[in-house]
């Protein structure tokens, strides 16, 4: 069932990196560096503008992958990986989409668990790939069986 999802993608969705959203996010992490939040400090920095914190892509809309309907319960976030070509800039538009990279199952102490690997990609208007965010979602046996029905 879930194995059939491998390679499936969502449509590209436009995201705008908003100043207020970055500020709120940085503050929620107690990480309100002027490089994130202060326009003048951004102008004086090497990039000449403000950047977003490394985990900010969790706020992006990557669209939805057709047929992939995860339950609310029984999921564990196992791993998270970011790769960047450069930092993300406040005010820029990022086109995001998701892809199911892999799915496999492993027997463990708590039954047969599913491991779903979903990647969120973001590219610039020019088509340059800016970042990827890979997420390993562990699906417990009860939730897995529920999804297979």
């Amino acid at each position, binding site marked *: 069932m879930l194995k059939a999802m491998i390679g499936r993608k969502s449509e590209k969705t436009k995201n705008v990196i908003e100043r207020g*959203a970055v500020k*709120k*996010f940085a*503050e*929620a*992490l*107690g*990480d309100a*560096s002027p*490089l994130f939040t202060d326009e003048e400090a951004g102008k004086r*920095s*090497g990039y000449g503008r403000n*950047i977003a*914190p*490394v*985990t900010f892509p*969790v*706020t992006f809309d990557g669209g939805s992958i057709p047929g992939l309907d995860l339950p*609310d*319960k029984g999921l*564990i*976030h*196992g*791993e*998270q*990986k*970011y*790769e*960047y070509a*450069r*930092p993300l800039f406040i005010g820029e538009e990022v086109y995001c989409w998701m892809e199911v990279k892999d799915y496999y199952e492993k027997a463990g102490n708590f039954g047969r668990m599913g491991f779903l690997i979903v990647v969120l990609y973001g590219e610039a208007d020019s088509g340059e790939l800016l970042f990827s965010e890979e997420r390993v979602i562990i699906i417990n046996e009860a939730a897995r069986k529920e999804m297979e029905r």
Partner: protein
Amino acid sequence: MTAMAQMEIGEALPVIRLQPVSRLDLIRYAGASGDFNSIHTIDEEAENAGLPGIIAHGMWTMGNLAKLFTPYLGEGFIRRYSIRFKGMVFLGDVVSLTATLEEKRSDGMVFAVEAVNQDGRKVLAGDLVFSVEG
């Protein structure tokens, strides 16, 4: 603060010890991140999910861990950041964040990063590549 490029293998960034995790921290992160999974904010929902109480978003801890590198963002950027979630963080937990330089490569400086709770138990661990620019 020494420049990142001058660090030597085995050297660590100054440790950050976070304030005890509060419900408001998690409510604020839920709002800012858009992750409203209620096991992070509502006791009954956490208990229904078989947890002893609400737990921090894994991404809250991962986001906090990256703060170790914020003072150096004028010198470069985080090229890669990879984490494995190893344990849960509960209300009142005191989380300490560490980063130790492991390797200098052409694409950046490789740090082993970790978040541990007040009992010394790892809650997340991974690595981070910081690319110094200019």
